[in-house]
């Protein structure tokens, strides 16, 4: 039953190349990381539409906004930590405030970056991008969804941010599964009655694993892939709360400010009685290590999702 492993970064690179053919105004910018972000695929195919900007991320973002003002669709890539925190003010002014058609696609989000250590493990990007007015925020869960989201980004106007991890990830979807996928509408990947586990990005795969284990304990978990963190799918969250009475959020991100916070805001304001817990990085900088070791130590793997779910349901 082991799933095919595909790297979402490769899906990004490939999709850029496809979209480049379709949209002659699509351009790509990178800050000396094109081999890692996979924008190199586009650079090779369309060198005249690829702009190497050097290790100067702030300038890259503002320049992308300038390109957008000339009708280009700029995709800007670097690691998540440099694509958000390093350039927050540039995104704020030139992209969000100006409502510019700039697409920021970040790789190496979360702690599965692994051995480079906490300096490179971005666990705050969803929070940073979510607080910006006008910004759409994605965290695709596999290569198929990455492709879909990159297409949506290219073909929908407005400031957008997406992040994927560094590692290969099991394929969750086939292309046709996502035919009708829409921005801001979460996907119910598996149904269930006892709890809804709302996850995004790399964590969708882990919660799917956890679901299998939970089934053995007689717990049926609904799995929601909340690929769009902003605008969040309020209706779906309310539905989950009402129908399952318990919600666990799971993200490779701080428990503060990201998916978990977004769900908490809705639950609290709608006054829904629903057991609730946020699973994520507990407001600490993690460390170097193999991703699996980190997921064990920082309690993000299927085993810990199972534990947390059981504990929540016993409350």
């Amino acid at each position: 039953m082991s799933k095919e492993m595909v790297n979402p970064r490769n899906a990004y690179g490939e999709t850029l190349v496809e979209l480049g053919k379709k949209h002659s105004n699509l351009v790509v910018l990178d800050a000396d990381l094109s081999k890692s972000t996979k924008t190199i695929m586009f650079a090779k195919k369309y060198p005249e539409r690829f702009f190497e900007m050097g290790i100067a991320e702030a300038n890259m973002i503002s320049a992308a906004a300038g390109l957008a003002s000339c009708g280009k669709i700029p995709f800007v890539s670097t690691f998540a930590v440099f694509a958000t925190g390093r350039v927050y003010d540039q995104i704020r002014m030139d992209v969000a405030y100006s409502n510019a058609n700039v697409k920021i696609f970040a790789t190496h989000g979360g702690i599965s970056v692994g051995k480079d250590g906490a300096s490179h493990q971005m666990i705050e990007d969803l929070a940073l991008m979510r607080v910006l007015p006008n910004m759409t925020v994605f965290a695709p869960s596999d290569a198929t969804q990455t492709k879909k989201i990159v297409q949506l980004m290219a073909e929908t106007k407005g400031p957008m941010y997406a992040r994927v991890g560094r590692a290969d990830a099991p394929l969750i979807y086939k292309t046709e599964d996502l035919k009708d996928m829409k921005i801001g509408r979460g996907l119910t990947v598996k149904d269930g009655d006892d709890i809804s586990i709302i996850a995004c990005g790399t964590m969708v795969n882990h919660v799917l694993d956890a679901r299998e284990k939970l089934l053995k304990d007689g717990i049926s978990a609904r799995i929601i892939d909340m690929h769009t963190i902003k605008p969040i799918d309020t209706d779906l969250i309310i539905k989950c709360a009402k129908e399952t009475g318990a919600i666990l959020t799971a993200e490779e991100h701080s428990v503060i400010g990201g998916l978990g916070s977004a769900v908490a805001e809705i639950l609290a304001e709608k006054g829904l009685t629903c057991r609730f817990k946020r699973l994520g990085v507990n407001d600490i900088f993690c460390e170097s290590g193999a991703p699996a070791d980190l997921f064990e130590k920082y309690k993000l793997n299927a085993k810990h999702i199972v534990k947390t779910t059981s504990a929540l349901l016993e409350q």
Partner: protein
Amino acid sequence: MGNRADFYTNYFYIKKHSGVCFHLLINGWGGTLKPYDEEVIKKLDIIAVKIRRHVIEMLYRAKSGHPGGSLSAVDAIVALYFHHMNDNPKKPEDPDRDRFILSKGHAAPTLYAVLAECGYFDVKELKRLREINSILQGHPVSFHIPGVEASTGSLGHGLSFANGIALAGKADKKKYNVYVMLGDGETDEGQIWEAAAVASHYRLDNLTALLDRNFLQIDGNTEDVLRLESVYDRWSSFGWHVREIDGHDIDQILDALQMADDHKNQPTMIILNTVKGKGVSFMENNVDFHGVPPNEMEYKLAMSEFDMLLRKLEEAS
């Protein structure tokens, strides 16, 4: 002149052949003149006074804003919009237009006054600077002020934004030029040097930067706050073609702009030697007027200075 279409046809015809904005022509600055001749310069000088007058009126009314850096920037922006640039207030989205980016966004009043006088929006709007529900935000916003290309106000972004436009122009083989005005204090920002390197790397000769070298920022003289000299050497060392001129001499400005357009393979930096607060005696070189609007007495004094200056210029022309 009849309808609006005619208005703009004429406007452009006259602008390109006289260096004088049609909008101002119908307000009394008539006459068709050859470019670069003395009359053009004088007319532009007169427009500059008119813009300065707007600026002071706007700030007085708004009771907030930045007189010093608005006034030092006037002559170059007037030279750009009323003579040099190829833009069309009727088609602010024209893909072939020349662009101007005011990176030092706090000089917004000057940009707004120029845009209004060129016809991008009604001059009456100037009265509502910084008021609630006004289009005229304290700092420029691209998506809702006609003619404003980039949202600025956080210093250091504008040259990067201009890079993007220049890169697009090169990619699309467009003939437009991009002009961007920087504050001297603003060049403390590292992002400026990232942008300087990128512009030179990509040989963006369709890009011209103008440095408002008024030697003042907020906390004092630029050389006391954070030494900039030699500004000339800094920009050359980053691969720019650099020229230094009197930033209040329209003749020199027009000349430098043309030279910048003609220069190939490198972006050009025009260092404008300017006086912060230029045109209002008690604001000149006075750091206290960086971000403090005139009070009533100061306002009146400034107006009388402008009146005198205008009279002098008009007599001479």
